[in-house]
């Protein structure tokens, strides 16, 4: 086998190994931290501009969505017809 062929093959194998390690490393690293440390929730409550995650601080302290004030007595409550059993 030619020296150049041998070196090329070695490079190819090594490149695949490095790429695979880089791709897998973050997932394995994240899985070891536990659920309380996940910083990118699957459910976005506000500010979902389609830009994706901006960094680790994005979801560390989710804030409530901005208040769009419809004014008093203009809500849309969920009223259920039922017989109350409160203490009266």
């Amino acid at each position, binding site marked *: *086998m030619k*020296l150049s062929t*041998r*070196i090329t093959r*070695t*490079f190819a194998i*090594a*490149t695949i*190994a*490095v790429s695979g*390690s*880089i791709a*897998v*490393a*973050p997932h*394995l*690293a*994240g899985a*070891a*931290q*536990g*659920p*309380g*440390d*996940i*910083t990118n*929730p*699957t*459910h976005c*409550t506000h500010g979902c501009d389609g830009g994706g995650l901006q960094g*680790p*601080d994005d*979801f*560390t*302290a*989710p*804030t*409530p*969505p*901005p*208040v769009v*004030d419809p*004014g*008093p*007595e*203009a*809500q*849309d*409550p*969920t*009223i*259920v*017809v*039922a*017989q*109350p*059993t*409160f*203490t*009266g």
Partner: protein
Amino acid sequence: MSTPVRTTAAALARALLVALVLLATLLFTGLGTAAHAAKPRVHTVELTTPVAARATVPEGVTVWSAPRATASSVTLPATTSFGTPRVLLATATRGTWLRVLLPTRPNGSTGWVRARDVITRAIADEVRVDLAAHTLTWWHAGSVALESPVAVGAPETPTPAGTFFVTDLLQNADPAGAYGPFALGLSAHSDTLSEFAGGDGQIGVHGTDTPWSIGQSVSHGCVRVPNDVVERLAHGLPLGTRVVIG
């Protein structure tokens, strides 16, 4: 003749392979370390605005005693016993967790839910009940939207004090009955009655068929308001509205 060349080439190739594998190992462990080092410290952030957290999971919302999956947990049904969608009042966040007030005994119980299990909505409304003054005040966006005299619990069945939230908005089948046309269920429970009228002693804000009792401490713990007032409250307050009784 070519043996020395092949030997040199093989040795070079092996050395190169070893070096690259070492590099891959370093990258592998290095990334994990970097990710760990870059991980921000998660703090509990108290919410200054009341936020209603509505359950989105059909099987119910799981509540943990602490913001970690290994903590003990219970699952609240997706609806209340009256069929109202389950809404909790969020009071703080910690990473992807929300601390919520619970509609369970004892009064003031809290737990943690995953943010992905609920839809949050800021609420501009708040209700305050002054037990001594026998008044209810509905605040909206910092202004008084309504103020009304109320009847509260008798000395032997007092209305519990604390911070609660609206869990149910009920339209009564019998608008002329003891609860009036509407009743708002609260997350509060009587401290003296473990059951009442088939219920578990849940406190409510409701209308009345005894309007002359308004302004007195005569109820079994509920807050009675005039029927026209409870109708406005039922149509204007969203589930999860904070109710402060004191």
